């Protein structure tokens, strides 16, 4: 019989961070493009391409570095493609995004069948995987070792990347320029900022990080490639970005919620909880998170005006 304490134990921290990492990397991609006022719906597909490329290239070259670089390169190229279609040829970004997503699903399945003759999952013998950091000093304590040891190196890096992104966005010229482009194009233009270049840069970087997220998914989170293995994580990243209204630190909060629900779901399933309900969890969470984000944004806006109203009344009464 399933025990609540088995689900909610200290090991959940490790599991949550593990499940959060792919969403978090994708969230970085979502935040960067959002700052240029572009909703990059294609993150999901770019991630899937990244996952496939990294896994396969890593296997053939026997090098995880090569695998990651290949994922990143494919992600960057796809980002540029999306940018070109949207910025140069003025295609609607949602349409371009869905095109990439559908292409990714079909293309990876096709290559799976043509190159490896399999469908569904590709499990290669002796695949390469991203290195994990084992801290030998903690071996004696199972709790500390679970909390701090044996992370894939990409997991702490994802968190550092979020902080770095926050610094770039809010403390540097590059960030100020990018945000001004996203918030008010005419102002940015009259300040001599190149709108097109900034937007293209943002969407290219968005592709780069989505590719990286894919590489982690097939070489770190797991060591195989499965059709549609992103399974909506790109969309969750967009939801997390929305939850943080484009601020990377708050968006990380959103990504953590998804990671947490994901790892809880995995445990519930192994305890015999009906799988249909478990599979629903991430999507229900997405809806809930988005609703909370929108309701709180609207509340905040109203509260601000009401506060101004009351403050104004006060100053009128006292004067």
């Amino acid at each position: 019989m399933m025990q609540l304490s088995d689900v909610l134990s200290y090991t959940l921290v490790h599991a949550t961070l593990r499940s959060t990492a792919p969403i978090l990397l994708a969230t970085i991609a979502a935040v960067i493009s959002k700052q240029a006022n572009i909703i990059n719906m294609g993150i999901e597909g770019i991630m899937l391409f990244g996952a496939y490329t990294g896994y396969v290239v890593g296997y053939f070259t026997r090098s995880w570095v090569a695998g990651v670089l290949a994922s990143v390169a494919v992600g960057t190229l796809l980002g540029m493609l999306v940018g070109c279609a949207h910025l140069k040829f003025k295609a609607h970004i949602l349409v371009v995004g869905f095109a990439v997503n559908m292409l990714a699903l079909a293309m990876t399945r096709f290559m799976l069948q043509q190159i490896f003759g399999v469908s569904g999952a590709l499990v290669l013998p002796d695949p390469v995987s991203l290195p994990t950091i084992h801290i030998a000093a903690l071996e004696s304590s199972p709790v500390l070792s679970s909390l701090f040891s044996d992370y894939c190196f990409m997991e702490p890096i994802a968190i550092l990347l979020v902080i770095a992104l926050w610094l770039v966005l809010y403390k540097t010229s590059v960030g100020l320029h990018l945000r001004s482009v996203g918030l008010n194009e005419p102002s940015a233009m009259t300040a001599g900022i190149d709108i097109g270049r900034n937007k293209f840069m943002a969407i290219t970087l968005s592709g780069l990080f989505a590719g990286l997220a894919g590489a982690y998914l097939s070489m770190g989170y797991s060591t195989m490639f499965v059709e549609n293995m992103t399974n909506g994580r790109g969309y969750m990243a967009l939801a997390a970005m929305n939850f943080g209204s484009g601020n990377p630190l708050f968006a990380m909060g959103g990504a953590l919620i998804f990671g947490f629900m994901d790892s809880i779901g995995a445990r519930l399933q192994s305890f015999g909880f009906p799988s249909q309900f478990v599979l629903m969890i991430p999507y229900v969470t997405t809806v809930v998170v988005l609703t909370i984000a929108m309701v709180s944004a609207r509340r905040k806006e109203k509260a601000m005006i009401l506060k101004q109203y009351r403050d104004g009344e006060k100053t009128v009464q006292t004067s």
Partner: protein
Amino acid sequence: MTLLPYIKLDHIVKQFGSVKAVDDCSIEVRKGEIFSLIGENGAGKSTMMKLLYGIHRPDQGLIQLDGQTLEDLTPQKAIACGIGMVHQEFMLVKEFTVLENIILGFEPKGPMGRIDFAAAREKVQRYIDDYSLDVQPDKLVQNISVGEAQRVEIIKTLYRGANVLILDEPTAVLTPGETKQFFDILRSMRDDGKTIIFISHKLHEVLEISDRIGVMRRGKYMATLDRPEATAEKLVNLMVGRNVEMSDRPSPCHPGPVVLEVQDLEVLGQRWLSTIKKVSFHLCAGEILGVAGVDGNGQSELVDAICGLRPILAGSVKLTGREMAGKKAGQLRKAGLAHIPEDRNTRGLNKEFTINENLVAIHLEEVSRGELLDRKKIAQKGKELIEKYDIRPADGELKAGTLSGGNAQKIVVAREIESGGKLLIAAQPTRGVDIGAIESIRGYLNRAKEQGVAVLLISADLDEIIALSDRIIVLHEGRISGELPGGDVDMERLGLLMTGGKSDEG
């Protein structure tokens, strides 16, 4: 002041599509002077200055600065040459702080590409002190007043090293008191050796501030006048090409029963300034009630609330005695509301539809047979209104988007007046239209009043308020700061009420 031209725009031609916005114009501006460029809306003033600032490229002609020809000008290059422009619409990112807006694009950099905010602050503070500009660098732009936003724009251009300042209709959003203060800033900048180009269509302001005045009309450059030789009559003549006799007094008024009664109305606005706070007034049949005030003091919110386009927080709106607060726009229309919206391009017209379709749009039942539209009836009704309201070109099958501002506005005015409403809300009815159309639109409003319609006129143009209103209420920060009788208006009192009855900035 040297008499040699510092800025020279030589035989400039600029065409947008089939319209010649600027047709062979030459302007010379001297160093260290305040040069005004005056003309009606659409005369080409703004276009000319956007060419100088590099936003548009001229099709023909030369632009010279201090004897050097500037080629392939872009805003970046113009800024590098020391040309700065304050646009009609403020170019500020409202989510950024004042300081971030000022340094945007020209940030002092510290190590690792970080912005050196301390250095920026110091430099900005110098300009604030030099010209005693009242600006708070750490406030978010969305929380500052319009006047302060304008000062931020000026600091922005100074910060970028501008020696030449182009100001596009800078006083349109200011109260009379703020304008005076603003002119003092301009004068002290001129005395500092800056060259200032001031675009306006307000005669008295131009006469007050300029050293020399250039006049444009319909894309042509008419003349340059030295301040001493310029008079209001001369300027109007050059601007319009004829003497315009516009009545500056409302026609006689015989008010009937109360049509609109607003009691303790409260409406949330985008910001505190424009939030409507316990506003009460009434309006009778056959009367024009003018709502004066500086833009953004709640005019749009008031109109939207009365028209059912914005939720009402508290209070009542009665239309011919029936409570209408909380009713939808459609129900209000049925109850006798007609509305000329302030933005004809998004709310007043469907630019992709024809003139005829726009004219019949709110009473489709009159031109349909059952559920089907009757093309013949539409054409007939359209023809009738086009003639009555002198809409040009008189072809009802043209898309509304192809018409000039004045004629497009006449479509809206015709449709709303002919809708048979008892209450007509006219929000900025002549904004951005030519002087001929202004004359006729004002005539239509007067005619509606004489036929017993209650007209609520909201306008940022004081001349218009004075020329039409039987009574005037003044909105300031979302409150009615006072009411004045129409006719001989005490301008000083009106100006004072617009600023809230006290000079709020010292």
